[in-house]
Each structure stands twice: as C-alpha cells, then as structure tokens.
C-alpha cells in the first residue's frame, strides 16, 4: 500500500536521537519533506551527514534549530516553515528525556524538568503547529509516548507520569480537533535499541529479552514504521486518539 506521504511536510522533534534519526530516514524514504527539529548543532550535523551519506536529497531536508521551551522560538520556526512550504502536514512529537532516580530522591527541579521536557514542550509545539493544520483542515500528529505510560516505571516515575499525561493529551485533543480534519495518535514503544535504553540494557538486558514475547528488544526503524502508518491520511484515515504499543510483547 502506498502511504501517500510524498511532498508532505513533516516536523520531527528530537530528530537527532535514535528514534528521531529513524523517523527522518523513514519519512525521507517516502519522499516526504522532512523538517528535523534539533537543539544541538553538533548532533544535528552528525544526523545531516548520515542522511546525505544515505543518498537522501538535501533539498528535502529543512532543519530548524528550536528551543521547545520557548514559544518565541517555536513560533519563529513555524513561520519559517510556513514561508518555505506554506503548510505542515505531519507533526511527530518525539523529543523527550528520561533519567532514573527513586521518586523520594527526586528534587523539585528534577520533577519539573521531566514534566517540561516530556509534556509541556509537547503541548507548546502542538499549540503552535495546530494553527496551520486548523487553517488547512488537515493534519496528522503522532506523539511518541512510552510503554511506561501504562506499565512498569519503577525508578522513572516522572517519565512514566509525563508519558501517561501525553497519552491523555493525545486522546482528549483528538476529540477537540477531529472535526477540523486533524488526527492525533500516539505510539508507546517498549525498550528500543537507542542510547536512552543503554543503562537499562546494561543491567536488565537479558531479563527484558526473556520477558518479551518476541525475545528481543525493538529497533528504532520498527517504531518509525508505525509512525509512518499513523501519519498517513490514506492508510490511517479513520484512526485517531489511538495509543499503539510497539513493544514486541514486553508489556504483556
């Protein structure tokens, strides 16, 4: 099935991480126009060189350095994208961060940072991007949540709580904007082979694999494929407010 994502303008936050990189590649393979959002120019340069080395055309990539903690920075980026392409078809809210610490050792600033990065920044970006989608009466959003939003979570309470909030944001917002032609879904990856999962794998790698129905952890590309599907107005036209777990059975 063709996903009909050619020439769709796709914003991807957290583009330089493991899943972000896979997302950029997956959308470029579909001949979409990818707008990787990044904060660290050095990390973006690594991503950029990787994309070029894989043969992707530079004119299909319109990277933007954005501070997701700033409305001004986000609005400026959205203006740049609007000026260049006149539209935003897909937003993938992929930026996020996790760190492990027992709840009772968390300081107020740690908690606030977790909520800011995983929830508030997602909401901030949505508020700005949805404007263009409202006007276009068309759009798809995929929020990258986590298996931890509804399972496990010992030692990562703020991450689990903020991702649970992202799930509910996804569903409640889907109800608000559906009549405007905008679909909002989330994917909930289990343990995926990225830098973020390295500390977890070092300590519990074998246990996690044993606990998975498929006997392994996931690859970033496997998350990206699900995001492509949900982003496609052709393939997922009647799917909104859905939380799709991608965990190889780790959460069963």
């Amino acid at each position, binding site marked *: 099935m063709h996903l009909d994502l050619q020439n769709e303008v796709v914003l991807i936050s957290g583009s330089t991480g493991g899943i972000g990189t896979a997302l950029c590649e997956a959308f470029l393979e579909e001949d979409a126009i990818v707008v990787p959002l990044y904060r660290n120019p050095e990390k973006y340069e690594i991503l950029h060189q990787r994309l070029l080395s894989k043969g992707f055309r530079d004119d299909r990539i319109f990277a933007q350095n954005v501070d997701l903690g700033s409305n001004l920075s986000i609005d400026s980026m959205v203006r740049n994208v609007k000026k260049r392409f006149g539209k935003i078809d897909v937003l993938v809210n992929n930026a996020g961060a996790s760190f492990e610490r027992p709840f009772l050792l968390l300081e107020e600033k740690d908690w606030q940072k977790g909520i800011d990065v995983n929830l508030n920044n997602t909401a901030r970006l949505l508020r700005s991007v949805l*404007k263009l989608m*409202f*006007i276009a009466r068309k759009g798809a959003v995929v929020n990258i949540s986590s298996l931890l939003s509804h399972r496990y979570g010992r030692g990562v309470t703020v991450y689990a709580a903020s991702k649970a909030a992202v799930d509910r944001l996804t569903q409640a917002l889907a109800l*608000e*904007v559906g*009549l*405007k032609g905008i679909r909002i879904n989330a994917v909930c990856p289990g343990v995926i082979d990225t830098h973020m999962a390295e500390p977890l794998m070092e300590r519990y790698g074998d246990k996690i694999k044993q606990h998975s129905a498929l006997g392994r952890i996931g690859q970033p590309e496997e998350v990206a494929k699900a995001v492509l599907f949900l982003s496609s107005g052709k393939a997922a036209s009647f799917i909104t407010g859905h939380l799709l777990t991608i965990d190889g059975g780790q959460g069963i």
Partner: protein
Amino acid sequence: MNKKEVIEKVIEIIAESTGLETEIIRPDSTLFNELPINSIDLVDILYSLEMEYDISLKLSDLEKQSREAMEGKPFEIDNVVTDEGLKVLAEKMPEIPAERLIKGLTVTDIVKLFTVESLTKLVLYKLESSEAEG
C-alpha cells in the same frame, strides 16, 4: 485599516470556519449565544485572524484593555468581575448590552458576551499595538 474592512473580514472568516451564511452574521451577534459557534470554532477563527493580519490573539486579550484601565483597582476577585470592573467593561465594550454586564459575571464568562464587533475591535486594537511597536 478601517473598521469596515476588518468587520467584513471577521464575518468572512467566521463564515468559513463555521459554514454559516455571511448574511446571518451581524456585527451585534454574540458568538456563543446567537451564532452556533463553539469554543473550537473560536480557536479556528482566532487562528485565521492571526494568519490574516499577522497578529497574536489570546483569549486573555478579550478583557486586557479593561484590566489596563483599572488604574490599580482590582478587575476581578476570585474570577468574579468587581463592580468597578463591570463599569470599565461597559465603557470599553459598549457593544455588549448593559443588561448582560451583571453582578456575579465571571472572567471566564466574558467571552460568552463577545460579539462579532468585539472581535473586530480586538483585531483593530492588536493591529494598532503592533503598529505602535513597529
């Protein structure tokens, strides 16, 4: 930009956002009571006006001018508009019938009194502010 042009554009955008015929959208129509507009439609309308005029519109802008005119007196206490606040609202928003500016009005409910003309005035106020800043 004159008021007539802006009001025509506001009516056009409301019609586009809601599917209503332009003929039934009058300057004195309240958005939420007399026109079948819901809060999501209002978001849509505000977005469209932002794009059209390259301004930023927030719901809190609705009563901002009145708050600014309070000269230090409280505009609201616990979300309920004070008597002084009601007076200033009546001055700043004469398009709203006096019988609707009653004691007990909450800040949250001010938006429900908003008319097409109120929205037009808000756009003009923002345009003037942005010109002054520019």
